[in-house]
Every structure is written in structure tokens, then in C-alpha cells.
């Protein structure tokens, strides 16, 4: 396998915990133990109620496309061979939104509110990225 050359997340702190779940095939988000608000990206405490108490909870893995852009000219050299590719914002059923890519939808078939579901893309031995495909049902 040739070396993966694209940018990778750093696997430390709360971001590292998020990607640790992805590596074991789980999409989890923080949820406040006090007011039960979901949140993403990871934060130290709940901005809704101020509670420090939270836990990682499994997401349904389902959501819909909130917005997207099709990138025709890479502005980062590591993505030059990928164009055109779409970066999408997925609004999960839990309400949080996640920036990702879609794996099985042609750029011209993208539409807002299109139902999608998470798939896991192990790009290196250490890092698995959550991606999305058209919802199967």
C-alpha cells in the first residue's frame, strides 16, 4: 500500500477520542449528561447549560446533506488528483453537523436534504475517517 499523503487529524485529546471510535467503526458524539444536548466538534463543557459532565454517545449514523461544495480546483496540493470532489456538511439526526465527503454520489447528484449514512474509511492504520453514502433504505 502506497503511503497516504493527505492531511490527517492529530489523535490527541478529545479529537483523538472521536477518531478512536471511528477506528472501531463507531460514530460517537458528545452528549451533555445534564441537559442532553448533543455537540460536535468536541468541547470541554456544555455551552447550553454549563455542565462539565458529558459522555460519548453513539450516533444513529444517519443524517441529511445540509450544504456542499464541489471542488474543481484543489487549493491544497495533496487533493490535486481528486478533483472534482465534494465536501459536504451532513446534519445528523441528532442535530449536530459534520464536515465530510460522500463516497458514492456523483457531484451532480448532490442535493440539499439528501438522506445519507456514515461509512468508515480507514485511510491509514491509525486513522479512520467518517464518510457518507446515500442512505440505503
Amino acid at each position, binding site marked *: 500500500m502506497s503511503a497516504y499523503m493527505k492531511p490527517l487529524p*492529530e489523535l490527541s485529546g478529545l479529537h483523538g477520542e472521536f477518531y478512536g471510535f471511528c477506528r472501531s467503526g463507531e460514530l460517537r458524539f458528545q452528549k451533555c449528561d445534564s441537559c442532553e444536548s448533543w455537540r460536535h466538534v468536541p468541547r470541554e463543557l456544555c455551552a447550553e447549560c454549563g455542565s462539565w459532565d458529558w459522555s460519548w454517545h453513539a450516533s444513529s449514523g444517519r443524517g441529511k446533506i445540509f450544504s456542499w461544495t464541489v471542488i*474543481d480546483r484543489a487549493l491544497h496540493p495533496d487533493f490535486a488528483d481528486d478533483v472534482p470532489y465534494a465536501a459536504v456538511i451532513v446534519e445528523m439526526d441528532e442535530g449536530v453537523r459534520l*464536515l465530510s465527503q460522500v463516497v458514492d454520489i456523483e457531484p451532480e447528484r448532490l442535493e440539499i436534504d439528501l438522506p445519507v449514512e456514515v461509512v468508515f474509511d480507514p485511510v491509514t492504520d491509525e486513522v479512520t475517517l467518517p464518510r457518507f453514502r446515500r442512505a440505503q433504505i
Partner: protein
Amino acid sequence: MSTGACIVGIGETEYCRKPGSGLSQLGLQLKAALHAIADAGITPAEVDGIMPFPNLGRAEEFAANLGCTNLRFASTIHMGGAAPAASLGAAAAAVEAGLAHYVLLPAGWNGYSGSRARQTIAEDVSSIPGGAIARDFYMPHGFTAPPQWYAVMARRHMHEYGTTAEQLGSIAVAMRTHAQRNPRAVMHGRPLTLEDYLASPMLADPYRVFDCCLETDGAAAVVVTTAERARDLRCDPVRILASACGQPYPADEITNRKDIFQTGLTIAAPEAFGRAGVTPADVDFAMIYDCFTFELLQQLEEVGFCPRGEGGAFVEEGRINLGGSLPVNTHGGLLSEAHVLGMGHIVEAVKQLRRECGDRQVVDSEVGVVTGWGDFGDGSIAILAR
């Protein structure tokens, strides 16, 4: 209550999109600074306050090169392209509080020949708010640069309000048309039609190449002092009625905003108008930070020049054109004059209020607005008057 501070000097270098100004980033800014200081009719030694643009130079090196032997006030507002208009407010407060007598605001870069503007931010992602968020949640998916970050907002606006490519194009065409009356503009002599716009290649859908700001070499600067000191200086002072800045929420992450169209301006604009004692209807022209076409449209809405969702019709009707009800960026803006990080917008507003704009002069202009946009939607606004 409006401030009593004034802009009393403006300066610019040439703007160009070719290698070979021969000047460093600092050198360009020093050149613009010297023009502004001379325009004010003061000496460099009288400049005792400097507010450098974020990450483009330190007050110490400006002072050492210019001979500002009595530097008493040095500060930078870390808001990217929103910094210049926000800094006007801080400079006004500083001179009114006696922290400094004359505050210099420089900005400039080799945005073309230095290649920095064209590079991805991959290497300096830490300089944006939430750098670790972009690094860990955006970059791995190829969501790496400002046109992409803002394209998702434009797409969503098109979905919710029916904003069209032609409407975004009308902004690009208006900026280019204005530049035809500005010999200093990089795009002077190179008009653009809506057909040209629609035929230009996609960069980050819905953004085409012509939706994006220029990458240029150049610098601009202004000098701020009190109204009292301004009285004895050579040029007509331009009053800073109010300046305010703000941030979207959360400011460090784009995708999870409850209101995806809210920017720092949404908060800053009503505050600034309140303090200035004027309303959007009183404004004769606006210099809107036009990093991309949609961001101009979005700021028109968030300032309150039109209701949210009506920006598309507003621009398509030609209201932002010279001769329209609210001429915008009469110099051509970042899209067609040069990318001077928003300082060029302040300089043009001052020229308009001094009525030095020749055949692009907005007739009888009394009140003008300048906005700034930076990072993930930080916003600033300055309301200026004769």
C-alpha cells in the same frame, strides 16, 4: 454617541499582479505609511500609535523603520480582513483617551508574488481561529481553503432564498465595471460581462474563478487622530462616527452554527448604527469586504441594507452600481482593484467623503460605511462622515 476621531491621512502603493515591486511585505507597508503620514501633513516622529494588520508585521519594526521615536500605543485586532475597520474604532478610542495622538494603521502584502495568498492554509492553519478544528475535522476531507469554507454558505443561501449564479455574477460585473473608472485598479482596462462570468471555470461550486478576490502586491495605510488635532492639518478630516466588530457563534467552527448566515456584522452593525446616530437609509455608499461575491451579498443583508434573502434581487437590480441607490466598492474592491486586506476599502471611503473620486465620485456623499470580514466570518463595520 459618535466618536470625535477622524481619519486625516491616507496612503497607497501601486497595486500590481506581476512580480517585481522589489519591496518586501514590510517595505510595501512602509511606503504606504509614508504616503499616509505625508497626506496628513505630520512627521513620522509624531506617529505615536501603530496598529499593524494581524501577522503582517510588528509595531516595533514599523516604528524603527519610520523613526517613530515615541511609540506609546501598539495593538493588533486579530480578525483577519475584519481588522482594519475594527481597528478604526480602537484607534479612535486610543486617541480620544490620550493613549496616542496619531495612530497609524498599515496593511499590505506581496499577495501575488509572495505566493502566500495562493497557497493553501495547510501550513499556517494555526493562524486561524479554531486551527485545531480545521486541522482535525476539515483538512482531512479536502475542505482546506476560504473559497470552499464560504461556498457552503453560498450554496445554502441559494437553497433557502433562491439566490442565483447570475446574481452573484452581477456583483463580479459591478466591481469590474467600477474598476474601469479607477486607473489604479489592477483590472482597469479589462471589463467583464455576465457571459464572461458564467463561462469562467468553477473553483468551488457555486464559486467560479470570477467570484474570488484578486491576489495582488500592494499596501495601504491611514492615520487617525482627534477632531481637535485634525483641525490644524492639511486635508479635510473624515469623521469616524462609529466602529464596531463582532463574531459569529461559534466563531471557530463553521458547520454547527444554528444560523449559518450570521456573521460578526449581524451583531456589530446595529451597534455601530446606534452609536453613530444614523440608519442604513442615511448611507450614501458602502465599501463592503468582497473576498467573494456571496460574502458581499451576505454582508449587505447582515448590515441591514436589505432584508435577509433579498440580497440577490438587490444586487441584480443594480442598486450597488455607481448611480444606484447604494454604490458599493467604487474602487473595484478586492474583486477588481486589489486585495489590500480591507485597508483599500477605508482609503476609498475617505476619498469619496473628501470628494476626490473624479468620475467615480458618488455625488453629494456625506455618510459612508466600510465593512470587514475575516477568518470564519468575524465582522467589522465603520461608519464615516464628512
